[in-house]
């Protein structure tokens, strides 16, 4: 056992790969918002799934108790992660599985490539996996001359269209049925030219297209939803049977899993396999769940590998306030309820992990100083819908606020002189410190009205406040404040009609604290 960490805390080592946005969120969001088809598709899909989720969650009398258990089980896992990993490793290895460790995306890609090379194959089938998306495995394999075929229907749509996933559960959520039909007609060799846009027909086309690949594939690549420390068991949750195909038919199976995916014990699965399907697809249970522990002689792949991936997870773990983001089971409930996601879609977030969870997880894994990701914590109205929906009760709004603080601190450290925001905050501190000071400022209100002009809107504010008016107009301020009106109304003997420009209000509010 290495003890090099003792005494000298190591600096967090951040992750790479498809975790970084290629452009800041506001810029990407502006473009995506202009795509009305995208917004219509997303609005339809997210509303459908919200309703389904609410219905199946309401069926269970013990849903909240289950969330409490889920949250505590994950906290317990993280608090004891080294021991959990060691136990998992011992159990998985004892049953014939081989474990590899990858510090980052590059290392994981190299390991997987080497394992494929050993088999002599140049084609692999893949079952949908966030981890391999995160490390950019497909692109890496392509550079190495290895073709990776996505087999999940939505991933297949995205891959055929040379597009990027926009949702962690339904990567092609931004496409509607007629768009899918067009993609199939354009990109699927030998497809029936009479293909209709009925989802059942489209699914059948995918079945035909992939059938031969499945039956002849020698190597498969998967992710894992859960790893059970006390037994060394891995789990894949899916719907179509493409997962079962990949996990059962090939001779070699290579799984890539983040180190945070563990659960302490087999019986913990009873909590998570209730939380996950209801939160993600809004079903009582997903059609298929596969479980395997190392190698089973005579049944399934006999050459079984697992790549344990860090890639910034330990950096997220090092953040005391943010580490619960690692509890995420990738159900996607938070993005399905998010008003920002619903309008911008997943592409605007840039990273593999979009939506509310992505807005915290990506910067935690890459570091908030990463230029492209430091706008992500602002991609939220802090309405709290994600927290309520999260099956493992990750307090996403709280972590967003924490990361905004980190971002501001890191900006300030760069700039040294007080920023406009600092000055504004100082000003606010002064203004709100007493009623008199506030009254004094409020007397300036009629000026605002003047500035707004005849159409009663202010289109451009000076300084950093201009950031606010860059994307919206603000209505002209009223000619008097509520406090001024109240004083007039409640001074015996004077009756003021609201809206009329008052004279000086009596300074009788001294001592009143904001």
């Amino acid at each position, binding site marked *: 056992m290495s003890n090099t960490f003792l005494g000298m805390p190591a600096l967090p080592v951040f992750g790479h790969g498809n975790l970084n946005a290629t452009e800041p969120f506001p810029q990407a969001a502006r473009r995506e918002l202009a795509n009305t088809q995208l917004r219509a598709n997303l609005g339809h899909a997210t509303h459908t799934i919200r309703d389904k989720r609410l219905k199946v969650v309401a069926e269970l009398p013990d849903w909240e108790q289950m969330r409490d258990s889920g949250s505590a089980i994950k906290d317990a896992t993280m608090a004891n992660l080294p021991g959990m990993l060691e136990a998992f490793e011992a159990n998985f290895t004892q049953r014939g599985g081989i474990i590899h460790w990858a510090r980052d995306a590059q290392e994981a890609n190299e390991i997987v490539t080497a394992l494929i090379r050993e088999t002599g194959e140049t084609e692999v089938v893949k079952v949908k996996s966030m981890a391999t998306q995160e490390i950019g495995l497909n692109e890496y394999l392509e550079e190495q001359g290895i073709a990776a075929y996505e087999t999940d229907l939505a991933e297949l749509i995205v891959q055929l269209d040379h597009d990027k996933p926009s949702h962690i559960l339904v990567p092609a959520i931004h496409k509607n049925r007629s768009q899918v039909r067009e993609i199939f007609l354009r990109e699927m060799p030998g497809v029936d030219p009479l293909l209709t846009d009925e989802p059942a027909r489209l699914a059948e086309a995918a079945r035909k297209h992939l059938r031969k690949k499945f039956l002849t594939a020698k190597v498969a690549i998967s992710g894992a939803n859960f790893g059970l420390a006390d037994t060394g068991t891995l789990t894949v949750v899916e719907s179509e049977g493409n997962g079962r195909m990949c996990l059962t038919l090939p001779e070699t199976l290579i799984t890539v899993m983040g180190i945070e995916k563990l659960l302490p014990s087999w019986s913990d699965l009873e909590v998570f396999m209730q939380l996950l399907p209801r939160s993600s697809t809004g079903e009582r249970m997903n059609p298929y769940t596969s479980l395997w522990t190392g190698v089973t002689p005579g*049944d399934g792949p006999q050459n079984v590998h697992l790549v344990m991936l860090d890639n910034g997870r330990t950096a997220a773990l090092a953040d005391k306030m943010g580490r619960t983001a690692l509890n995420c089971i990738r159900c996607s409930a938070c993005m399905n309820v998010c008003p920002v996601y619903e309008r911008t879609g997943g592409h605007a977030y840039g990273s593999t992990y979009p939506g509310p969870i992505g807005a915290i997880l990506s910067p935690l894994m890459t570091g908030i100083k990463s230029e492209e990701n430091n706008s992500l914590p602002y991609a939220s109205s802090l309405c709290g819908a994600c927290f309520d929906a999260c099956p493992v009760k990750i307090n996403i709004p709280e972590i967003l606020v924490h990361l905004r603080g980190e971002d501001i601190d890191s900006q300030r450290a760069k700039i040294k002189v007080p920023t406009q925001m600092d000055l504004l905050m100082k000003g606010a501190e002064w203004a709100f410190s007493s009623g008199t000071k506030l009254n004094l400022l409020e007397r300036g209100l009629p000026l605002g009205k003047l500035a707004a002009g005849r159409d009663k809107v202010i289109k451009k504010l000076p300084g950093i406040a201009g950031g606010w008016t860059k994307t919206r107009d603000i209505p002209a301020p009223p000619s008097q404040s509520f406090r001024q009106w109240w004083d007039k109304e409640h001074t015996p003997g004077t009756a003021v009609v609201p809206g009329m420009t008052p004279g000086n209000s009596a300074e009788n509010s001294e001592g009143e604290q904001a």
Partner: protein
Amino acid sequence: MSAREDIMGRIKSALRDAPETPVVPREYRRSSNMSAEQRLEQLVDRLEDYKANVFVTPAAKAPAKLAELLAGSSSIVVPHGLPKEWLAELTDDAGSLAVHVDSPERRLTVAELDAVDAVVTAAATAVSETGTIMLDGSEDQGRRIISLVPDRHICLLRAGDIVEVLPEAIARLEATRPQTWISGPSATSDIELERVEGVHGPRILDVIILT
């Protein structure tokens, strides 16, 4: 330093504030308070919701039911441990139905499995609340591949093996056995989140529940 040591070191460094291990509350339901009839009824309802075909039959009538379902089929595969009596009424039909037995001595190839009309297996247990049937690779259920490649899966489940909630099934199953949990025929919701049945796994799931 190896990647493993490196990562372990990073984790320990990340946890140097020694976060507390919470006591895990287990207030959720861990056992059933339904009668056997209620569980049966619930399971039928849930499986039909997933578009599986469900038949409730007295155990003695199982062979007849199976023969009825397989009328018109030309070949099936069964695991070597499937109770022989279930197949009793299949073979006396002038031998027109070929029954391939998959066993450790004679494992069917992928191509052979792809050519049969159906697979017939037993099941380890089932959860009525979620409509889930669990296979654990026992001798009456066979290798995972045999219940995957054929386009039709006929599964015989003993009513006594139905539990209500998932924790009861977890208690009955052994983690390290290769398992497949099945809730309806293969399906996808990937296009506009509309569930359609029949993608890569068996497109038809028949469940015969033996009372």
